[in-house]
Structures are given as C-alpha cells and as structure tokens.
C-alpha cells in the first residue's frame, strides 16, 4: 500500500460529558474545504459513552460519515482507551488527513496516536490548506512564542495529522437536511499497563485574578468616570473571556484594587488583546502594556497618547460604545 492509497479527511469530534466541543464543529468546517480540494469526503470519529445521538449534529454541521465507538470505557476521557479506539479506526479506514482540536484532550490524544501508528503530527495549527498543484497538505502554526510562523508538511507518512487551535477555523451553518452515514465501529478494548483510574471529576472553581496571565484585558482609566462604570468593563471582559485591569489613577481613586494595575508601578502585561478604555496613555501606563499583541483604544480625546500605540483607535464615548460592543459579541457567540 502506498501513501496515495490513503483517502479521506477525518476529524476527531471531541465531546465532554456528552456535549460536543465547539472546536469539533470548526474542524468539520475546515475539513470540508480540504475535502473539496482533494475531491474526497469528510468522516468524523466520535468516541464516548451514550453519545450516539450527537452523530446527527455532526452530520448537520458537515460530516459525510460518522464513525462511532460507544462504550462505557470511554465515559470520561482517558488517554489509553481513546488512543486504542482512534488508532483502530485510522488503521481500518486509512485516511489521508486526521484533525484534532488543540485542546487539553486533543493535545494528549493526538501525539499518543501519532506515536502508535508512526506518523507525523503538527501541533496547534492556525491555518491548513492544500497546495493547488502538488495536492500536498500544508499545516501552518505559530512557534517561538508566536514570533514566527512555520508551514509543516508530512511527505512520506500517512495520515498527516494536526491539532488545530480552537476558535480559528469557521464552522459551517447548521443544516439539518444534510444526510450522512453513521457507522458503529466494533472494537474490543484491551486493558493494558497504560490503563489508569479516574477517582474524581472536579469542576473548576473561580480562580484568583492574575492579569499577567489573561489573554484578553479590558482596561479602564480615569476616563471611566467612577467605580461603578467598571461593571460595564467586566461585562465586556466576560464576553471576551478576559479580565479587567486598570491604570494607576483608578487604583489611587480606590475604584479598583492594586492587583489589577497595569504600568510602571503596577504589572507588565502582554495579552493577545488589550482594550484601553478612557486611558490617556501616560508614559508609566504604556510601559506596562505596549507589548500587547493587539491594542484597541477608546478615548474621547483625539490627542490622547494611547492612540500612538493602539492598533485600533476609536475617538468616541466609551460609555456608549462598550455596552453595545459587549452585546454584539454576545450575540455573535449565540449564533
């Protein structure tokens, strides 16, 4: 068998406690593009216990085939049984491409599977495409702390496997009229030395605030007006999965605790997104945040120095813009 004999784009449908993870649907969306370029179809691997009913959702979001192993052993995610199941399906169907979400599950499962079937695996991809001429599958990912992008190929091994960063690919619109095949894959698990037991499933409790670890910071300055206006920022931060931070003036005024202060005498932050609201951008503040990946500034003063470091500067009334933006983001999440 040669590598040309491997056909089809496969994705792993992650479900947690019976609920499909968003990334599972995003992968199907991307897989459809790839399958179109390769003139093949999309199969989705679904593992779990009492999860068969999820197959119709996967089809509605674009799966042509759903291959299911439904077994009590798969109730909670455990590396070894999931590796056995996915490996068995790959070995049976011999797909050309297999995609996993770059999640705490996907980034554990995929390397274990790649190790077992001896193939290449590319981590945490943010872009996937097919070379129009060679039909080679190209996986692009950030490296070096996000400073460098690398395009990876897997020339001599199949399937080509990748984990894909959640939130990057776009899922298709749900279409319940779509049809697909559901296959119950027969597999007997082998309880080997790699088995371990789960004693407890612990739901996460709220964590301590650490603005230096936040991926998104919504930051308020003196222009917020008063302490109560920070509720509005918290709303936006929640919608973006981030934290609220602030300038020194806000801490001095007693509107926010010191642990949230950004700047020379506060913390130095480098989030993916920093939204500065009503912050003029004193040199002490800029020192603590100008390394942020993407900076949005909202300020009514068009000459505020914060605009010099902002990628997007909005001259306007934050008290009206912030709530509307929050609403719009929440609405887009609902879709």
């Amino acid at each position, binding site marked *: 068998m040669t590598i040309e004999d491997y056909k089809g784009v496969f994705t792993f449908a992650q479900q947690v406690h019976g609920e499909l993870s968003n990334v599972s649907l995003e992968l199907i969306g991307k897989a459809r593009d790839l399958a179109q370029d390769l003139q093949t179809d999309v199969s989705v691997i679904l593992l779990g216990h009492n999860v068969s009913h999820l197959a119709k959702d996967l089809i509605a979001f674009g799966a042509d085939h759903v291959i299911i192993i439904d077994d009590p052993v798969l109730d909670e995610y455990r590396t070894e049984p999931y590796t056995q199941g996915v490996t068995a399906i790959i070995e049976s169907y011999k797909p050309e491409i297999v995609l996993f979400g770059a999640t705490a599950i996907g980034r554990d499962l995929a390397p274990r599977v790649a190790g077992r079937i001896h193939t290449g695996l590319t981590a*945490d991809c943010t872009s996937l495409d097919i070379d129009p001429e060679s039909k080679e599958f190209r996986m692009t990912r950030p490296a070096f702390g996000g400073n460098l992008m690398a395009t990876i190929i897997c020339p001599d091994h199949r399937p080509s496997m990748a984990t894909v960063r959640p939130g990057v690919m776009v899922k298709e619109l749900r279409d319940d009229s779509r049809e697909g095949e559901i296959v119950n894959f027969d597999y007997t698990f082998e309880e080997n030395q790699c088995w371990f037991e789960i004693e407890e499933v612990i739901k996460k409790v709220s964590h301590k605030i650490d603005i230096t670890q936040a991926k998104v910071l919504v930051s308020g300055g003196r222009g917020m007006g008063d302490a109560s206006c920070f509720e509005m920022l918290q709303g936006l931060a929640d919608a973006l999965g981030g934290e609220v931070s602030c300038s020194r003036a806000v801490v001095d005024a007693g509107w926010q605790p010191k642990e949230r202060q950004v700047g020379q005498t506060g913390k130095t932050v480098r989030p993916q997104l920093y939204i500065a609201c009503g912050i003029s951008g004193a040199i002490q503040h800029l020192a603590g945040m100008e390394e942020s990946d993407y900076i949005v500034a909202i300020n009514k003063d068009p000459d505020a120095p914060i605009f010099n470091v902002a990628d997007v500067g909005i001259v306007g009334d934050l008290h009206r813009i912030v709530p509307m933006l929050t609403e719009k983001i929440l609405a887009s999440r609902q879709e």
Partner: protein
Amino acid sequence: MKIIVCIKQVPDTTEVKLDPKTGTLIREGVPSIMNPDDKAGLEAALRIKDEHGAHVSVISMGPFQAREMLREALAMGADAAYLITDRAFAASDTWATSSILAAAISKLDYDLIITGRQAIDGDTAQVGPETAEHLGIPNISYAEEVHVDGDTLVVKRQFEDYSHLVRAKFPVLITALGELNKPRYMTPGAIFDAWREAEIVEWNRPDVPVDDSNIGYRGSPTRVAKSFPKTMKAPGMKIEEGVEESVEFIFDKLKEKYLL
C-alpha cells in the same frame, strides 16, 4: 524511587524581538533558559524527593551548551545529569525526538518520568505523550497537582474547565504545567558544587539504542516547508465616527484578528 525529568534548553522567547525593518527574529543576545514547564516538572520531582526520598536524574537532548542548564538543574537539587548530544540527532521532529529520548531513558531505571507540558520555542506539547508511547507506559498530561501515595501516583489532571483526579501505578509519565508549582532557586553552594564537582554524563549516537530510521531529519515524518515572521503590526488606525460605526469597526477588526 527513581525519577527522570526531561528538560530542554530554550531561548527566552519573551526576550525575542523582531527587527522592525526586515521583520526577522533577532536571536542574538537572547538568553537561553530552562524551559519553564520543564522547570516546574523538576520542582515537582524535587518535592517528591524532599518528602519521600528519591533519586532525581535530569536528561536533555540538545547541543553542548545545554550542559549549563543541566548544571542549573543539579544546583537546584537533581542528583544526576545526562546530555544526549550528537549531530545525528539534529533536526529531529517530535516523533524522532521522542524516539531518541525513549531509547536513552530505557537505559536507566525509573518509576516516574516527568516532562514539561510544552517548550516555549516549539509549543508542541507532543514529546511527553510520544515518549510515553514509545516506552509503552501511561502518560498523564497537564498535571496541576502531583503527589505520591504509597505505590501509586495521584495527579490532578487539568482540562479547560474541569479536572480529573487520576491514580496511576508506576511506571508512569506525567507532563507538568508551569502552574504546578513555583520552582525553587538554586543555592550558591550547590552552584559551586555543580561546576566544580558534579559530572554530566554525555551520550552520543552510539550510546543511544535507537534505529537510524527513527532519528534526525531522515527519521522525522514532518518537515518544515517554510518559516516566516508573523505579519508585522500594521500602523495603527484611528477613526472618529458615530457609536454604531465604532462598534462595527472594532468588532470587524477583532474578528479579522481571530480575537473573538
């Protein structure tokens, strides 16, 4: 108990700057550090040593300069250090790297292997699980709490919004999260001992029982087709419009940058 901690020397990527003219990485003068997740893994091992007694070995694959990091590990309290170094191992991807590591580790006795979750230069998080696969032992990734309970290891294994409390028998491999602990500092005396007395065992190609087909560039299933700097920051733009237009503008920009 015998513990092996896999550590990697990495450039401190938080210190990396882009050349504003060419857009390329400025790597000169960037300090090398022990990968943070690996350091947390070493600290976890040292705490087990403090509490229950253990022999902690550190092992690293990399260039000759990685010896310095191994001495740092010794100065933190590790008992033995191994450096796997050979040109034949260069350009290995995660599959080949884990094959080499597993083969080297198989020469040692171990109950517990600890790796960091991921290295800050590659960010793959694959070498730990793949090494466990090659060794045929279980792996527990994303460890946020670890303790030894008799002849088992109890690990709190992190997922996005929940955790598992897992109990595994030895031997087992875990991958450590940076937030697992705050690594200890070296002590001045241990630094002196690490440089003046300790020995770092060096393993070259012949010392590692691994097949040629599984190492280096030729043993790597994946290839880097090209690498390029992240798109440079576009010069900032500033608009002065109505409220709705402003909201729309921000929203589109965030969407464009995958920030939503």
